């Protein structure tokens, strides 16, 4: 379902379980005093109290057992001399072990210790850490790595891509190539960030771990090359900066010399040391453009933050100037470096515009001006959106204004909506300029197709492209609105239309015609709809489904249609056709034992009173019954033309339909004009042995032999017999036998029937 596709992914569903309890508590504020739900009758209340007493009694037993076992275990361990020696002992916690040495980087994990580790890992992540101690102690090249035991803490490093880890701990700068640290101690699995704020590691532990890390990946040596004359920070200088830095634990730009003195595009830039002042610029998403004048020199940073460090303290560009931390000569040297080396280095790459052939290019100044105007325009949109939310939340006007301003600013910076940030995909499709007007299409990867008429020209804007905009006088205006206001002429519209045609020409073969294909009209879906719904009802269903009122203009509404496969009162089984709605491949759903296969990624929903349910959920909630499911399944076979009669053994007509519809979908969907039929050679307790024929499918005339459990089935073509079962599934005879859907005695009967019908094949 489009509304919630982001959360059908299992990992995301799992991730939602980790939502911070503060946010949950905040949401709970809306649930004040709830009315009784159903109201438990008096009899049931007695049952509930009894259940609680029963539950408490069991809990008490477990508590008692839980208290006794560790005591007994400890006694046994103490008498046995050392912990973990007997793998068959039940160890409840890593704290129960006793070790002779404080640190052992090659500590051999015992079965008992692994049991405790697995228990914690299972609790945290839902599965075991390792099956064997050997697996737990893996030290793979460029993979997982076991760092040993530090006191009662076991340290593991788990491979995880895209996780360059640079952090400072104690007096060391750790630089790890990838992955995540996990520290398992006592009754908890700690991430690195969580563990670092505990006091479970001494400096000695950290030193030892650091040495191990360096041995783990010794080739990962940061390479720092600076132009001659640039100051190279010493480890002592870096340590002092790190100590003075008041950043969050998880993110320290001064974790290492390599990160501090890096000069990476869109990351950080080390300007060097000017007198006693070290200057670093960092690309931080929370910081938008800031330009300032200092001692007569103009600095302009598109985004990011400047760090000035001197004598144990950090300054920003404002406090640096206020405190005169640099002399005039030092400021000039900083400016010279900035203008000669930083500006060209950080020049915005104007490569993300999609110029069409022959279209006049924009100048750098023009593109910069569009960039600024676009950021301001988007800010206004975000501000308006949040302002309305806060007003509806009963904030005062002043509060709503301040909150909306903050939210819009933060949202904008997080989106990093800059025109020329290629990696953010926030590019425009540029259609050219006429005089002081620039014509652009704002790309939006989530945008649906957009079809509209303007000045006699029919625009079909492909999905993934957004609104067509006119930029003029520092402002953006929608193309249609600009025309209606007289900002652009009919000639201008023609100009854009022709540019759009030229741009889309290369993929226009995929579009049936410039106008929407005939099928994309409400009431005329992709396939036949067994039950015809009124246009009004279809609009209601599409409205609810799309959930985006701003896009539901008349022309766009005409691009969607609703097919109905079942109706009962105000409950409908529907499939919604429309452009750019579905991205999944073939999928199936089993409901009450019946398989529904969808070959083009569309899904069937049960629609009831404004809500959509999957077939399975609707069945589980009792919204539809098994009879309804059968009827829907039956209706969905309607597109398939098939012969109902089967020979030599007769099969019920409905079952023929069910099996054919599933089979047809699994083979690539309905083929227009094709007619299906079945030949049945055996009726088993759980299914049928059949051939499914299709007029659209011709098998090679190759004598084919299939031996199943010693029975030789000889076929005149490459087509083989199938076994249909469970009302909608098909498999080979061998698979059916293997999966116990077919008995050997039944197979024998099938063989004998088939052989009797085709003696010519067995001569």
């Amino acid at each position, binding site marked *: 379902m489009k509304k919630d596709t982001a959360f059908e992914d299992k990992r995301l569903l*799992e991730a939602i379980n*980790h939502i911070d309890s503060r946010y*949950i508590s*905040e949401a709970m504020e809306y649930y004040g005093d709830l009315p009784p739900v159903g109201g438990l009758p008096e009899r049931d209340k007695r049952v509930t109290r009894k259940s609680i007493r029963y539950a*408490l009694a069991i809990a008490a037993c477990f508590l008692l057992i839980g208290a006794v076992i560790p005591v007994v275990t400890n006694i046994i361990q103490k008498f046995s001399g050392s912990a973990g020696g007997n793998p068959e002992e039940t160890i409840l916690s890593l704290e129960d072990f006793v070790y002779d040495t404080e640190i052992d980087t090659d500590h051999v994990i015992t079965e008992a210790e692994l049991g405790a580790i697995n228990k914690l890992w299972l609790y945290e*992540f839902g599965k075991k850490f390792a099956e064997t101690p050997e697996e737990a102690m893996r030290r793979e090249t460029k993979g997982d790595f076991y760092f040993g035991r530090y006191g009662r803490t076991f340290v593991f490093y788990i491979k995880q891509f895209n996780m360059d880890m640079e952090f400072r701990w104690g007096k060391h700068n750790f630089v790890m190539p990838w992955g995540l640290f996990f520290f398992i101690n006592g009754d908890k699995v700690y991430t690195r960030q969580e563990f670092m704020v505990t006091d479970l590691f001494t400096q000695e532990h950290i030193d030892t771990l650091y040495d191990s890390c360096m041995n783990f990946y010794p080739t990962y040596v940061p390479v720092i090359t600076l132009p001659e004359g640039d100051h190279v920070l010493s480890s002592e200088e870096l340590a002092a900066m790190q100590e003075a830095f008041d950043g969050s634990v998880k993110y320290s730009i001064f974790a290492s010399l390599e990160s501090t003195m890096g000069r990476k595009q869109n990351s950080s830039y080390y300007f060097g040391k000017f007198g006693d002042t070290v200057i670093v610029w960092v690309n931080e998403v929370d910081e938008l453009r800031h330009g300032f004048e200092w001692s007569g020199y103009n600095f302009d940073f598109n985004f990011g933050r400047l760090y000035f460090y001197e004598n144990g303290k950090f300054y920003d560009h404002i406090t640096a100037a206020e405190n005169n931390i640099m002399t005039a000569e030092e400021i000039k040297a900083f400016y010279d470096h900035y203008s000669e080396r930083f500006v060209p280095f950080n020049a915005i790459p104007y490569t993300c515009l999609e110029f069409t052939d022959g279209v006049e290019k924009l100048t750098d100044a023009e593109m910069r001006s569009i960039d600024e105007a676009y950021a301001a325009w988007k800010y206004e949109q975000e501000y308006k959106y949040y302002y*309305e939310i806060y007003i*509806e939340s009963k904030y005062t006007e002043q509060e709503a204004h301040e909150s909306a301003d903050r939210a819009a600013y933060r*949202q904008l910076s997080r989106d990093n909506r800059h025109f020329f940030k290629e990696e953010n995909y926030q590019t425009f499709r540029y259609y050219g300029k006429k005089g002081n007007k620039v014509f652009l299409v704002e790309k939006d990867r989530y945008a649906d197709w957009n079809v509209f008429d303007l000045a006699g020209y029919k625009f079909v804007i492909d999905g993934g492209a957004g609104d067509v905009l006119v930029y003029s006088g520092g402002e953006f205006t929608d193309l249609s609105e600009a025309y209606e206001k007289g900002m652009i002429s009919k000639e201008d519209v023609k100009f854009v239309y022709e540019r759009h045609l030229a741009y889309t020409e290369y993929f226009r073969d995929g579009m049936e015609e410039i106008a929407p294909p005939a099928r994309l009209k409400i009431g005329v879906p992709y396939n036949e709809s067994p039950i015809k719904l009124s246009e009004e009802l279809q609009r209601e269903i599409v409205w609810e489904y799309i959930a985006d009122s701003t896009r539901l203009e008349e022309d766009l509404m005409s691009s969607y249609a609703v097919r109905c496969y079942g109706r009962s009162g105000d409950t409908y089984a529907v499939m919604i056709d429309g452009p750019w709605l579905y991205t999944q491949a073939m999928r199936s759903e089993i409901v009450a034992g019946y*398989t529904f296969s969808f070959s083009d990624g569309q899904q069937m929903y049960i629609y009831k009173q404004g809500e959509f349910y999957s077939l399975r959920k609707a069945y589980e909630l009792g919204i539809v019954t098994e009879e309804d499911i059968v009827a829907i399944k039956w209706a969905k076979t309607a597109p398939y033309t098939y012969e109902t009669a089967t020979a030599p053994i007769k099969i019920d007509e409905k079952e023929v339909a069910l099996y054919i519809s599933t089979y047809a979908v699994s083979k690539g969907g309905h083929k227009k004009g094709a007619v299906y039929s079945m030949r049945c050679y055996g009726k088993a307790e759980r299914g049928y042995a059949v051939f499914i024929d299709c007029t659209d499918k011709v098998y090679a005339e190759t004598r084919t032999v299939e031996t199943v459990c010693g029975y030789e089935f000889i076929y005149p073509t490459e087509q083989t017999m199938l076994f249909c079962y469970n009302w909608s599934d098909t498999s080979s005879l061998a698979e059916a036998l293997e999966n116990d859907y077919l008995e050997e005695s039944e197979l024998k009967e099938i063989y004998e029937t088939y052989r009797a019908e085709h003696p010519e094949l067995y001569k």
Partner: protein
Amino acid sequence: MKDEKIIELFFARDEEAIRETQNKYGNLCLYIAANFLALREDREECVNDTLLELWQSIPPEKPIDLRAYVATIVRSRAIDKSRANNAWKRGGNVQIVGEEFLSMLDDGCDLAEDYESVRAGRVINDYLGALPKPERAVFIMRYWLDESITNISARTGFSEGRIKMMLMRTRKKLEERLRLEGITV
């Protein structure tokens, strides 16, 4: 009774803690369970399981916010019950194709795959932290509590159209954020 007093009763192992929790949060538990479980008997069983888990976990746990703590447990139990019900209905040999496919993501994947969920959780929390409170609450109600749009509208006072717009925006931006963090969805 205030939450602090109820927690004190738990620590004192006084059964009155269960009764007071039932009185104060029983309706909330049933309400949350109802979002995941169709049958009344299942919801009641879920609430009983929640009370038992509270008794077993407090102490040593000492929730800062008892209401959120209770809500988290009952939601978790309801989801477990819902999954167990589905497994029973599916029978021994028949699997939901969709879940079979999803479970294939687990089979053969190394441990780093599990951390994706944990890491995704951190990204989601980070993202939620930047949202205004009303948007955040709507998100939680929809995706954590599994509330319908109509119910969210009744709770918050926002129109259904506004809620749909908010959810669509947050979903879009969250998806983009996850993609930028290298978490594939």
